[in-house]
Every structure is written in C-alpha cells, then in structure tokens.
C-alpha cells in the first residue's frame, strides 16, 4: 500500500524520561512489538552520543540499529533555538546557520524529511534561505500543520506561497492528524473528571465545539460549571477541526504525516480524531508516505502514577491496527 506506517519515538517519551528505555530500546520496541519499520525521532529528546556534534561513530551506531531492527529513518523532528539567550532573540542569520548544521545532521542520519514548525514570521525567511542547502542534501524541509493552527492559516499558507513561488522541491508539510479533532483528548477528559469536572457539562462543551457554535465562559458558568469545566472549555478553544478535504491542497508537498492520537481503546478506536475522513482523502488522492504514530496521552495519567500508564507500545500497535482497518474498509478490501 502507498500509506506506510511508522512510529515517532515521541510516543515513548515517558519511558525514556524515567530511564526505563534508551534510544536503542525505543527503536527495538517499535520494530519488535509494534511491528513497524518507519522511525521518526527528535534528536533533542533522545540524542545520539556526543550530540549536537555528530561523530562518525554516532552515525555508524545509528545505521547499525537501523539494520539490526530492520527500520528506516523517516522524519527528523527539529526545533528552533531562537530563544537561546535571555538578553535577545537570535538573528535570522544565526538561526539559518544553526538550521543548516541541523539539516546536515539529519541528512547524514538518512532522514528524507526535516520536520520543523513555523512559529514566528521570521521562520518563513529562515526556512526559505535554507532551501538550497536542503535541495543539495536531498531532504525536505516540512513545517508541521498542528493545532492551534490549521491548513487555512498563515502558518501554512505563507509557506505554501514560498514553495510555489520558488518552485523548490525541498519544501513541504507534515500535517498532524490533530487538526481533525472532533473532541477533547479522551485521557484529558478522564483526568478532568478525576479532578472534579462535570461529565454532562463537558459533553455539552464538546457538542457545541462540533456544531461550530462554541460555548462562552458565561455559558459554562451558567450551567454551574467549575474551574475544571472551564479548563475543558479553554482547551477545546485551541483544538482545530479542518475539513479533511483541505488536505488535498497540501498533499502534493507532503511526504510524511503525524498520526497524532491520545488513546486507543482495546477495540482499536480513537474517538477524538476524525481518522476515517482523513484516511479516505489520503486513499482517494493516492498519497504515498509514512504516517508516524504520535501518542500523546500518557501525560494525563501522571496524577495516578506510572503503574496505570497506558503502555505506549501497545497504544501504537492498536493505532496501526486502526489505520490498517480503515484502509481495508475504505478501499473495499
């Protein structure tokens, strides 16, 4: 199939944070237990030895893992360091220089997609200035389309304008499936309920969100909502539900997708995100690329401790089953 499946090691972050897994361990579990070959990682989260210097030894180590676990590098999760110093923002030239160094590291590690994110207007100029180097390196600079900004916002549209104006082959996007959110993340709602939110009020907040008639603070207070209900409201205001059809506008420049999800049930459902329509568009467009599972639910279980964590590996496995099921069903197989 044209849609390939991978995992962002971001999904396994809590186990790494607490010292239960190292970088190799994460790759091993993705390969052996999720059964996927596409590896996305954030070097600043799970650095190779000596990072941010990248020695030949570190490169060899990386590829030895890729070979050992039968995996391939997909997308490299980069960050901007504009805020390096307290007394000033870095200049455009300084960020360009750092980004070019980073692009080279990504290319040396075999990545074809350099996922970054436009935050400030300056980033458009910065990334445009990096495009020639990216072309030379054969890597795509892809800005993530991520809530609270969607496809029809300047973050996406102005980068699209740069791609089309320059005619570059090295510019693109990583749409994050979170832009098709139909409700608050399930584990977040569970936590709010543990903390005292009202189930009925949250249900009405979510209905109003789906009806595109969002409630106001006054509305929620009028229903007798407490601070936790208001937290649900302010969170839902930062969610995005883009029409999945809009994906077609960016798919020609998209090689990689973030399969954001918050909680997979035992029967392979993720009720917070409209995967069905997104996958339908991808299939219809004949899109080719990796979807990286990006699990982001564990943090909502911190209050009740490590032992009741959802297992991120099992979560990613279920996520892949869901996508495969959708593909099978939608393509009539």
């Amino acid at each position, binding site marked *: 199939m044209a849609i390939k499946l991978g995992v962002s090691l971001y999904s396994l*972050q809590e186990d790494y*944070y*607490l010292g239960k897994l190292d970088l190799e361990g994460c790759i091993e579990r993705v390969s052996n237990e999720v059964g996927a070959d596409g590896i996305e990682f954030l070097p600043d989260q799970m*650095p190779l030895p000596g990072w941010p210097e990248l020695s030949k030894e570190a490169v060899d180590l990386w590829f030895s893992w890729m070979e050992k676990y039968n995996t391939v590098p997909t997308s490299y999760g980069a*960050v901007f360091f504009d805020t*390096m*110093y307290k*007394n000033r923002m870095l200049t455009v030239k300084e960020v360009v220089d750092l980004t070019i160094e980073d692009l080279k590291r990504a290319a040396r590690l075999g990545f074809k997609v350099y996922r970054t*994110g436009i*935050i400030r207007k300056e980033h458009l100029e910065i990334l445009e200035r990096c495009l020639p180097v990216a072309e030379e390196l054969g890597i795509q600079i892809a800005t993530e389309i991520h809530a609270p900004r969607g496809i029809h916002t300047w973050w996406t549209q102005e980068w699209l304008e740069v791609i089309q104006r320059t005619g570059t082959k090295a510019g693109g996007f990583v749409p994050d499936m979170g832009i098709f959110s139909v409700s608050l993340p399930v584990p977040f709602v569970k936590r709010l309920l543990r903390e005292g939110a009202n189930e009925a009020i949250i249900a009405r907040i979510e209905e109003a969100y789906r009806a595109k008639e969002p409630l106001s603070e006054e509305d929620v207070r009028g229903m007798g909502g407490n601070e936790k209900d208001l937290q649900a409201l302010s969170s839902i205001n930062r969610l995005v539900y883009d029409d999945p059809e809009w994906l077609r506008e960016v798919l020609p420049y998209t090689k990689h997708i973030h399969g954001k999800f918050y909680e997979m049930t035992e029967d392979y459902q993720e009720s917070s995100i409209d995967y069905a329509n997104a996958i339908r568009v991808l299939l219809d467009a004949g899109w080719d690329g990796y979807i990286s599972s990006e699990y982001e639910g564990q943090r909502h279980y911190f209050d009740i401790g490590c032992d009741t964590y959802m297992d991120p590996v099992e979560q990613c496995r279920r996520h892949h089953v869901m996508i495969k099921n959708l593909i099978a069903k939608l393509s009539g197989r």
Partner: protein
Amino acid sequence: MNEKYLICEEGLRNVVQDGKKVGWEFWLRIPYYAGVPLSMIDHLKVTIDGEAVPEEAIRFNTSCGEVFTLQELETVTTYRWEYGEKARITVLQDGGLAPGRHKLEVDVALRIIYMPKGNSSYAWAEFDVE
C-alpha cells in the same frame, strides 16, 4: 510539564566538604519533552521550608562535572540539560540542613520558542535529611 517527576527520588542531602556541611543538594529532571542548552533555562527558583533560597547560592552541576551559577548559565550554550537527565542542584549554605524533615519547592522555567508566555513548572516534595 512533568511536574510529578521533576524532583527526583534521590531526595535531599547535605553536602559535606572537609568534614563540614557546606550546603545541600537535590536532583531535578527537565520540565519539558526535550533537552535544551543550559542558556535556555529562564529561571530556577528554590524554596526550602517556605523560604526562598538566594539565587547566588544555587549551582547547576552538569553531568560531566562543570559547575555553573545561574547567572553564568545565561551564556552556557555548549552544555545541555538532557531530557530525562537527573541534574544535581547544589545550594551553598553554611551548616547545611538540620537533620529531620524538610519541604523542598522548585519553580523552573525554560525559554521555548512556541511558548511565548514561558514554560514554568512548579513541584514540591518532602524528604528526611540525616
């Protein structure tokens, strides 16, 4: 972020030098989902038993043995606080902490570009000191 796991289970210990208690220390994980150069630590406030520790008394110890004041950290771009690293934080205080139970509070913020309002995290814990 990660508030529950910021202060590490290693607890609170006195620092003894030449037989004298010269301060105390604890271990801290980063309140973020990645590592950062140390210069991106925007503030690190420490409170013990309800009393704020003077900024000048705080030392950040890197995993490779360098020791920096918070004021020095502002230009330290070449050493990182890695994700999941337990950074040793030392507080210089003649006599150290008295034996018994103490309440430690930390408020730590990083400068992250997509968090324009700053990323400040608060955590507290109580530990017995020998």
